[in-house]
């Protein structure tokens, strides 16, 4: 009788233990896989771990070197495009100033003829900038491949003709992206929060009363980090509809550089590569990529 009781008790305790174990496993499984789509099961390592690791390390190093080389070439090519555009712009402004000087004072027939020639050169200059380079907007750090693959370049050039007052030459340079950990003292005093901090210098060649910049911060998982649902939205870019993190309105006088900075709270920060893109009038005017940890 006593043995029977012991057996029953043993059996019950075993059942309880097994049920608890199963529930724990289910809970851990759900917790582990619920939010983190990038988490993968790491398969059991074969015995020759060091060899695999070394070869992966070598492959990664080679890939990184090759990517750096490509990036360097892209930067060089981009720099040369920018240099070319800048020199065309310089010539454009020089001609414009010369024309203004000529037309300020009473003109002779010869001066008129000279002005006419300069106007023709000016028009040719604008046409060259537009159609040879594909866009009137100087860019920095833009992948040359993306610019060349742009299908609607001529259409954009046509749009520039129609919307002259919006054809502002913008570029975003000295771009920076970093993260900051803050201590949150609301409700839970032990809580901490991350912020993504970004900045860039906006340059333009014409006076701007009010221009809109769309700022996009892309997280390592490819999702756009939105500042808040009230400050984010989507816009039509040349590559289709894009969600923006926040938008900013700026006004700049001619040739003025303006530093723009922003911060975006990021409650669920993950380490990895973040991309910052800046758009104006549907065109990207600058981008960078940074690894944040």
């Amino acid at each position, binding site marked *: 009788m006593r043995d029977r009781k012991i057996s029953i008790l043993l059996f019950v*305790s075993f059942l309880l233990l097994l049920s608890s174990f199963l529930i724990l496993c289910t809970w851990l499984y759900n917790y582990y896989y619920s939010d983190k789509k990038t988490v993968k099961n790491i398969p059991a390592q074969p015995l020759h771990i060091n060899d695999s690791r070394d070869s992966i390390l070598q492959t990664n190093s080679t890939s990184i070197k090759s990517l750096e080389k490509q990036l360097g070439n892209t930067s060089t090519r981009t720099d040369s495009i920018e240099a070319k555009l800048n020199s065309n712009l310089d010539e454009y402004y020089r001609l414009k100033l010369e024309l203004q000087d000529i037309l300020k004072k009473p003109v002779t027939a010869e001066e008129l003829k000279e002005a006419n020639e300069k106007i023709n050169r000016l028009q040719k200059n604008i046409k060259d900038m537009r159609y040879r380079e594909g866009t009137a907007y100087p860019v920095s750090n833009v992948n040359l491949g993306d610019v060349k693959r742009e299908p609607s370049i001529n259409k954009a050039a046509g749009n520039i003709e129609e919307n002259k007052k919006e054809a502002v030459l913008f570029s975003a340079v000295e771009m920076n992206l970093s993260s900051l950990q803050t201590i949150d003292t609301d409700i*839970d005093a032990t809580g901490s929060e991350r912020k993504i901090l970004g900045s860039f210098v906006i340059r333009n060649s014409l006076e701007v009363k009010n221009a809109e910049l769309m700022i996009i911060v892309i997280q390592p998982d490819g999702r756009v980090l939105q500042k*808040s649902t009230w400050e984010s939205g989507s816009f039509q870019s040349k590559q289709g509809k894009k969600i923006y993190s926040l938008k900013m309105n700026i006004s700049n006088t001619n040739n003025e550089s303006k530093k723009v900075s922003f911060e975006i709270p990021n409650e669920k920060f993950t380490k990895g590569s973040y991309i910052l893109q800046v758009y104006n009038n549907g065109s990207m005017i600058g981008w960078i990529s940074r690894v944040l940890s």
Partner: protein
Amino acid sequence: MLIGPLKKIIFFLLICFAGILTASAQNNFKLKYKNSAIYAGVEVGSKGVKMSVLEIGKNARTNGSFNILQEITVNTDFISFTQPTFHATLTEFNKLYHTAINDYKIPSERIYTAISSGVKIQAEKEKKNDWIKNLSDSFRILINEPSRKVAVIDVIEEARLSHLGIVPESKRYSTFLIDIGSGNTKGGYFPNGNINDLRLFQLTWGTKSASNEAVKRMEDDKSLASFSKQLSRVLAGPAETEIVYTVNVSGAYNMSDNIVVSGGIAWAVATLLYPELIENAVVPVTFSEIKSFTEGIVSNYPGYSDSAIVKDLTDPILDKEIIAREIKRVHQVFDQRALMSGAGLLLKIMRQFEGITEQKQFFLVKNGQVGWISAYVADNISK
């Protein structure tokens, strides 16, 4: 000899087992915010009883960070004030309360119960205020909580709470909130820089009432073209007169930079216009976008089907299945004529705030129906 220790072991295991069960049940929700808390609101409305399980973020009062985790609505038609509908409402009220406690493991002190303004207005109209008292008293007896508060919210309080629940603190005193319902439209703004004084705004026009009026005028021709023509006349005639007058009297134009629209039609239009923002509860829109939408709904309705919209989405990150499902839901709730009526009414209201020199910001809110209960919950948490 072994029985004693074994009993202790079993007792210990039982405690662990119960703890694990409780913990696992509470963590079934996919929470959006860090350091948030889960609350439930059970409300009796005009159509029936609704339970909303809400995640209230730590900054809910400042940036409106609340997330709807679960929503259950049961239509019991309480405002017909008959014995069967009374019993049906009481039963569902009790059932949903216990669902929050038993299924979602929300303690009773985190469950708020209320009766909405639509019920109060109808009860006052039909002199059936004692039905509301009977419902509250019967509910307290059923759940065995004699001191439980069942608040009866009036229309101004509901509009005030909606504003507090939907609009973040940074935009509180520069935002005019409008809720376009099926039968009427209401809203308001805070003109005096405090959250106690709300200037109420009410229209007798809603999505369904505009549609009904257009149908009434249709005579023998029941075609879409005829409906469209009659709807234009309704919106340009009696509806516009009331809208213009009410907006002018409210003084909202001069006091507001942001116009926020909630209600079913806001959800529908936001979903169809901005499918890529499916996860966003709030979507910025412009007057011209809504104007194009009202024209497109008539001339190119198939262009707003789930397949047509999803086909144009190029971002690989977007979950096209979820988007398609939500668009289908929009079309289940709103047919073409309902979309035309609601969007037309929305456009008419927005037109009053569309200026040439001064630009107002327009927003559509998709989850406005729980705005007031979330503010009610947040309000009571802080007390």
